[in-house]
């Protein structure tokens, strides 16, 4: 039987969230969540593999308690069980610590896996680092930005586009892939379906102590990267403001800056005078 793992992240629906100026981290508790789009594509890929090869799927997510919803949505799509990693001490983890915690949880809850699937990046931070770092932490090969996969016995055949090349690769199992959101369009789940998943609770909830992590581990403190300052960008341009009737503004624009516009186009525009 094929033993599949999918790692998913709950992300805010809105991209602009308030942040905590003391810790410099997002106040995620204020946002309504959804499953990160490319994580859903990874789950869809897993479901199709599982259907072909009689597999089972365990979904892992690290996040605040409300990320449990994401796991139920995943189960409504077709995953078999969920593991939620949640603990105040995990808050503020960078990708180094996130991948460390995910790896520990996988080794504890699902050590005999064949393949881990992750989204290629998240919509809220886009580092694309957790997938490859998780592969390293688990000591398995990993391939990013995979578009299609095909499994035969113990190698996985992968197709991806990378830096203007189309590549066909073969990877030993167990292994890890991150999935690009192109080919595996996620199936739709109805609200009723998610509701039903909630009726058969099948989610383990683990904190740092359950994972036999270093008891002193506090993600914010032990992440190698530290945010030291957050600010909004400023500018020092002359910033001429034109307002009024559109036709007049456009005339003024060309009167004053026709040279520049024409220069960039490689054409002479300014010779014309308005009546």
């Amino acid at each position, binding site marked *: 039987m094929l033993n599949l793992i999918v790692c998913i992240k709950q992300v*805010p629906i809105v*991209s*602009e*969230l308030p*942040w905590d100026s003391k810790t410099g981290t*997002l106040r995620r508790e204020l946002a309504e969540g959804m499953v990160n789009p490319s994580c859903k594509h990874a789950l869809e890929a897993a479901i199709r593999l599982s259907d072909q090869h009689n597999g089972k799927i365990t979904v892992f997510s690290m996040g605040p308690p409300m990320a449990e919803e994401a796991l139920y949505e995943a189960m409504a799509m077709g995953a078999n069980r969920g593991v939620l990693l949640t603990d105040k001490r995990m808050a503020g983890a*960078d990708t*180094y610590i996130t*991948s460390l915690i995910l790896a520990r949880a996988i080794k504890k809850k699902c050590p005999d896996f064949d393949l881990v699937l992750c989204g290629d990046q998240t919509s809220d931070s*886009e*580092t*694309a680092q957790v*997938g*490859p*770092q998780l592969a*390293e932490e688990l000591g398995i*090969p*990993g*391939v*990013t*930005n995979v578009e299609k996969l095909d499994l035969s016995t113990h190698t996985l055949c992968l197709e991806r586009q*990378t*830096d*203007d*090349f*189309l*590549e*066909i*690769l073969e*990877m*030993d199992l167990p292994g890890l892939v991150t999935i690009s959101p192109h080919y595996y369009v996620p199936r739709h789940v109805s609200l009723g379906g998610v509701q039903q998943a909630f009726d058969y609770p099948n989610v383990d909830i683990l904190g740092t102590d359950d994972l036999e992590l270093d008891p002193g581990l506090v993600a914010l403190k032990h*992440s*190698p*990267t*530290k945010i*030291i300052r*957050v*600010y909004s*960008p400023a500018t020092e*341009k002359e*910033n*001429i*403001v*034109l*307002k009024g009737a*559109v036709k007049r*503004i*456009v*005339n003024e*624009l060309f009167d004053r*800056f026709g040279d*520049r*516009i*024409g220069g*960039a*186009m*490689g*054409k002479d*525009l300014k010779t*014309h005078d308005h009546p």
Partner: protein
Amino acid sequence: MKTLNRDIWVFGDYRNYFQNRVTLQLLARAGELAPKTGGSICAIVFGHDIGEYVSEYIAHGAEKVYVVDHPQLKQYSIEAYTGLMERLIKAHRPEILLIGATCFGKEYAPKVAKRLKTGLTADCIDLDINKDGLMIQTSPSFGGNLIAEILTPNNRPQIATVRAGTFQEISHNADAKGEVISMPIPDDLPMERVRLIRSERLPKKGRKIEDTSVVICGGRGMGSKQKFKKIFELAHLMDGEVGVTRPVVHAGWSGPNTLVGQAGRQISPKILISFGISGAIQHTAAIDDADFIIAVNKNPNATMMKLADVAVVADANQACLAIIKEIKKKIQL
């Protein structure tokens, strides 16, 4: 890991040398940072028959080049390259490692950082050295209008990825001298668990938005797919290219290859005209190098309007139409 020197290393990512000059751009930035760290500028090159890249890197500022040249490395290979970088860094222990945020670099950097148990910041828009000698890694953050400065205070090397177009390469200097340090391939590199079966270059796209002097950018404020066509018309008329924001891609008004921003293209036109764009940092980080910006927005307080040389307070559609008319008139003369 403790460092042995204050050197700045740049990974030589030459696979798309003619399309992507990010390695040269990173060498240039390393050259600006090196006096502040007091180390040398080093390039790291793996592959086979790579002498021409080694000379290019020296001509663009590398003082030392570490080279592993072997037929086995002919193709980019993630596992071998990761193992080689890990060993080299453990042996030489530099202060900083910079990697271009190409697809390969984005796959490579996280693995290297993890092996070396150190931090990594993705897609930096600036790099500097603070008074304590640490690298300030500036990166857009929090999904909105904010920029974060990030340090890796305790782990080494400090690693960052940077997208192409963020820094400017220095000009080619054929007389520059650099030390080339060739190393044999270690005989105990683990077996490849990822094998390349086939690779083909994808067909080239036409002229690229990165190279044009006129870019017309349209955002959500254009209102609809139908109305958005005016953006294409104006770009065509001015012999420029179209750039868009993410909501426009999501709405299907234009293709993903026209996205301008952190997740898309970086542009440096002589003139940029921007219609109905709010100016989120993920977009504006990619337009810094535009010489002259005209922004049209009905909201005079939009960030994009503050960034513009000329801020036009108007309806984006009407303004676009009026500019099209005006240019048509002026070209006919």
